């Protein structure tokens, strides 16, 4: 594992992620999540739907960033197609509120990544897409930091559950050790989602239409409800 992955998955990475709950705040407000078992079900569902999609998109972005710097067969770098990949993310994100949250987090991560791992590929992304979706920023940042598409996918899958888990600890006062125990039990799921993401993403660049598009309508609805909620602590 590349050490940069530790930085990219650390909740202390100053890229604004701490203020996003990924639908957890509304899931709690609605009563669907109220203890560790209901949080477990929520996180597992989130990981295998939204998590699987973002992991694949992140791996695709990382592989694409690599292909624009060195092309393994021809030896000539390709032209980045960030706009097309961005459209693939849009097409897989039904909720406007989720699209907005994804672009906000992508913009903030890109800002951090450009200072921490300065590179032409990040500058190129910023020039073409100043508000990239989070998976695109994460995949490109992972490449700039020296990580592989598989590692980038793992980071995305972990992001899909770690931030929501922390939000639940803060909002419900759950035992943080119990919640970290829950995250540990999801390790095999993380491995499986990462493997699936890479199968879909790495060998098809830029055949992105075949990337996973599994939807989570409940998450979409939670995101939309959250965006108009009168009282909220988290951005999303």
């Amino acid at each position, binding site marked *: 594992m590349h050490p940069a992955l530790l930085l990219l998955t650390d909740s*202390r*990475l*100053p*890229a*604004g*992620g*701490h*203020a*996003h*709950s990924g639908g957890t705040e509304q899931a709690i407000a609605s009563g669907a999540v109220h203890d560790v078992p209901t949080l477990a079900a929520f996180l597992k569902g989130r990981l295998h739907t939204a998590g699987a999609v973002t992991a694949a998109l992140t791996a695709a972005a990382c592989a694409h960033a690599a292909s624009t710097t060195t092309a393994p067969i021809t030896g000539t770098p390709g032209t980045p197609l960030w706009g097309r990949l961005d459209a693939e993310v849009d097409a897989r994100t039904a909720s406007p509120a989720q699209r*907005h949250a994804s*672009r*906000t987090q992508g*913009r*903030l991560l*890109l*800002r*951090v990544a*450009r*200072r921490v791992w300065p590179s032409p590929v990040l500058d190129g992304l*910023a*020039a073409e897409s*100043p*508000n990239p979706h989070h998976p695109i920023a994460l995949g490109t940042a992972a490449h700039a930091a020296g990580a592989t598409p598989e590692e980038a996918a793992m980071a995305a899958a972990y992001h899909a559950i770690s931030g929501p888990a922390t*939000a639940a600890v*803060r*909002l419900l006062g759950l035992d943080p050790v119990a919640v970290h125990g829950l995250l540990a039990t999801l390790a095999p799921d993380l491995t499986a989602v990462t493997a699936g993401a890479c199968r879909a993403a790495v060998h098809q660049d830029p055949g992105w239409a075949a990337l996973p598009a599994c939807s989570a309508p409940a998450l979409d609805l939670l995101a939309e409800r959250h965006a108009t909620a*009168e*009282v*909220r*602590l*988290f*951005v999303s």
Partner: protein
Amino acid sequence: MGANHDDHHHAPDGHDRALRLGVGGPVGSGKTALVAALCRTLGRSLSLGVVTNDIYTTEDADFLRRAGVLDQERILAVETGCCPHTAIRDDIAANLDAVETLEHRFGPLDLVIVESGGDNLTATFSRGLADRQIFVLDVSGGDKVPRKGGPGVTTADLLVINKTDLASMVGADLGVMARDAAAVRGERPVLFTSIRQDPTAATVATWVANEVWSWPQPHHPAPAA
């Protein structure tokens, strides 16, 4: 928000942008009232923007908008995910994004005020977010608070002790507060205010104006006569 910046890399030394002023302090000490007073007093001679960090909802931003001290569009609210101190100290990304959004939309600005969510005495602004910071206490929290210190009381560029009109009612000794604050702050200034009695916060506004005039930014308007 959703700024469409081409480049987030504003010069860290601040030579091409507005002074960024953090206003922090415990819940109820008068941060929002002070920000409103500064807008009222400085808004005619300076180009301003305000970012609020509410713990809950957008109440502070709404209060400022209702107060009519500044164009509504120049006030942005940031959500802090239950951690107001994280948003101004450890992970300043959302606040920087809001500040740069205001500069992008309305720039060049002279002063951007970032008001923190109410927090405890350990809260302090990152130097990556605020060039100067004010910590606001009030006398009704007790006259022992300055002695307790903490990074806000000790290191803020200006300590404001508000609600002096309540001192006699809560048995707070302003002399003790001044002495204790001086003991932990050395030469750093302390100002006593009652924003209820002086809604212009004249002494604090003068301090802020002096900081703005001495800030190396080329777009200053002429100081108000």
